[in-house]
């Protein structure tokens, strides 16, 4: 008996190692070296326009970052953007998944249409929304004027109070389909028997949702929250295409600051340190989500 268990244990371990190895092989080559290199770079004071002097500063770069008010502005911008994007995307995705989980004529067509935003490359997405928000010719202004909700064309992206939200809107539009699909996939694993039992017990739609659907969706929700947070917190493409950190510093997020420090200020050390700060925040948030949702992992 113990012997059998012993062999079993060894077999499990070996199989696991073999099954997991291809992943690590791929990741090693491409992902690990850049990550290590980045960290190494962050420990030095590297300014490309001063290549002859690259002193080792340990965590000096990190200290400078935390003392920089621009950094804290970026943190605030990133937080607002991430919270808005993740929460609205998740809520919308939940509604859409619930809708698509019902059987009704035209569902197939609808689920195909859902894919349109997801299929749009971020550059096309950014340009399209920039065009829609245009203060001179934009569709948004056009519709609102025709509906009579506003009198004249107003500035959307260029208004610092609105900028982050307009960008978030473009991001939500594009990211919602994936989130919806992930939730839907998770919903599909809920057995119909559970719903039937609940109905027999006298539960109405809301109660069924609260007590059957939502708990079973926990893994799906965790997946969505972790993924959405990871990509929102470090989103770059839309900021590059739409606002370049502006107007003023209205859309100056952490990932934008990393770009500026690295490629405009040519301060590779600071840029690398900033990315590690962002990485750490991302990891902690993901860890909290995974733990909080009680994953068996």
């Amino acid at each position, binding site marked *: 008996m113990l012997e059998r268990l012993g062999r079993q244990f060894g077999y499990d371990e070996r199989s696991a190692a073999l099954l997991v190895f291809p992943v690590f092989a791929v990741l090693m080559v491409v992902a690990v070296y850049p990550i290590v290199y980045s960290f190494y770079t962050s420990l030095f004071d590297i300014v490309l326009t001063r290549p002859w002097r690259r002193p080792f500063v340990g965590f000096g770069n990190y200290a400078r970052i935390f003392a920089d008010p621009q950094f804290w502005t970026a943190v605030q911008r990133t937080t607002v953007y991430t919270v808005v994007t993740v929460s609205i995307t998740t809520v919308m995705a939940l509604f859409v998944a619930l809708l698509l989980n019902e059987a009704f004529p035209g569902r197939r067509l609808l689920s195909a249409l859902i894919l349109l935003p997801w299929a749009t490359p971020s550059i096309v997405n950014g340009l399209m929304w920039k065009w829609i928000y245009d*203060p*001179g010719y934009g569709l948004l202004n056009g519709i609102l004027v025709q509906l009579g909700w506003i009198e004249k064309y107003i500035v959307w992206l260029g208004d610092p109070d609105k900028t982050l939200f307009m960008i978030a809107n473009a991001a939500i539009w594009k990211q919602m389909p994936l989130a919806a699909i992930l939730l839907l996939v998770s919903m599909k694993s809920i057995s119909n028997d559970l719903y039937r039992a609940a109905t027999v017990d006298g539960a109405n739609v809301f109660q069924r949702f609260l007590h059957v659907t939502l708990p079973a969706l926990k893994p799906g929700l965790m997946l969505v929250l972790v993924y959405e947070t990871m990509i929102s917190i470090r989103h770059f493409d839309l900021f590059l295409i739409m*606002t370049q950190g502006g*107007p003023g510093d209205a859309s100056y997020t952490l990932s934008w600051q990393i770009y500026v420090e690295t490629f405009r200020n040519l301060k590779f050390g600071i840029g690398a340190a900033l990315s590690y700060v962002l990485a750490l925040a991302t990891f902690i948030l993901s860890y909290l989500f995974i733990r909080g949702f009680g994953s068996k992992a």
Partner: protein
Amino acid sequence: MSLSDPRSVSRRTVLKAAAATAAITVAAEHRSAWAQAPTINFTSWSAAVDQVKSHVSAFEKATNLKVNYENFPWAQYRTSVVTRLVGNAPMDVLWVSDAWLPEFAEAGWLATIDDVPELVKYNADAAPFCTQSMLYKGKQYGLAYYGDHMSFVYNTEILAKAGITTPPTTWAEVVEQSLKIKQTGVVEYPMLMALAIDTWLIEFMSAMVFSHGGRFVDAAGSAIMAETGKGVVEAANWIREAIHTHKIVAPGAVETSEITALRALGSGQHAFCIVPTYRLRALNDPSQATAAGKLRPTLMPKGPNATASATCGWIRFYGMTPGAKANATRRANAVKFMEFFGGKDTGGNYTLQKLLLTDVGLPFCTTPLSNDPEVKAFWTRWAGGGDVIAQQAATAVKKDVIAPWFGEWNETANAAWQSIFLNRATPQAAAASMAQKWKELRGS
């Protein structure tokens, strides 16, 4: 092997082998491309691509050298080129903006050409402003690709409709005329400005500052931008009032990039604008702009403290990498290339320079070409005559903020400018932050 199912193992192996084979095939396709001999690696941004390509074909035919021509969109050019330079990619010749010269030179990414007589001899034919823009610490780093300046352009039709007979000569007159145009209801925002955070913003703002008779820094390089009466504060004030008080500039201007502004100007919706002179070709082309034929340059308006019109000029040039210069063959090839493109081609003509002008409207640095009848005809056709342009070119001043810390300073400056445009900071406060950053960077 503990995976006891033999069929399963072999299937996975087959899959992996297939993937590997496909990968190797894809990689092999790449390797064969590299196997071709002598190649010159030329990197540029995506402007005048067809013109450059045609000149590359001519070069390849004339010299039997192969050119590997890569181009990136302008907005991503610096990022891409910095990555490649840091990554030691094989680059021989690249386009560089004059603003980046000190940074790139300090970083060791550009080679001097003072010791290359085949190239330096062209300085004799080049406008002094151009040659000086390629000097850093007394050494020359390239040959000009093109040189330009900011022009003040007005729409003749709109002015006529508003009953204005002569274009403005001072910034105060610009306000007057704009208000008059606004009152007659011809256009809502007569003065068009591209105030988005763009690579062009520093050039637009320098034109504003210089035309107000001012400078950012003095001859010694110390910041004078925060001082009243030195131009920056006055220019900033003019723009702020134009947007918020007189309302002759659209509030959406903070998100208007240079290209968007061009479209708007070309569709005849504004009366005045500051544009790079090379845009005149497209602006007056009926197949590209509805306002074609109506857009004319006039001398840059003067600020109250200015004695004469002034504007900002810039050049972009061909630079050679030290890696290319260190290798004898690569050096020889790169020199041939730079001569063919930045100087005369093997036929003894400034072919590309003329081509860039007639096709795209890019002004050149080569003074002898100005007397060419085709060139004169070009300016007559597309700008209503070349006199104003020549006059303005003579007043063009190089950006005085070009320094090894330009990149970083520019970030602060851009944010400061925008805070002025958004009326979230006074011109004095914003200029002070610019000056502060300059002092900080210069001192360190």
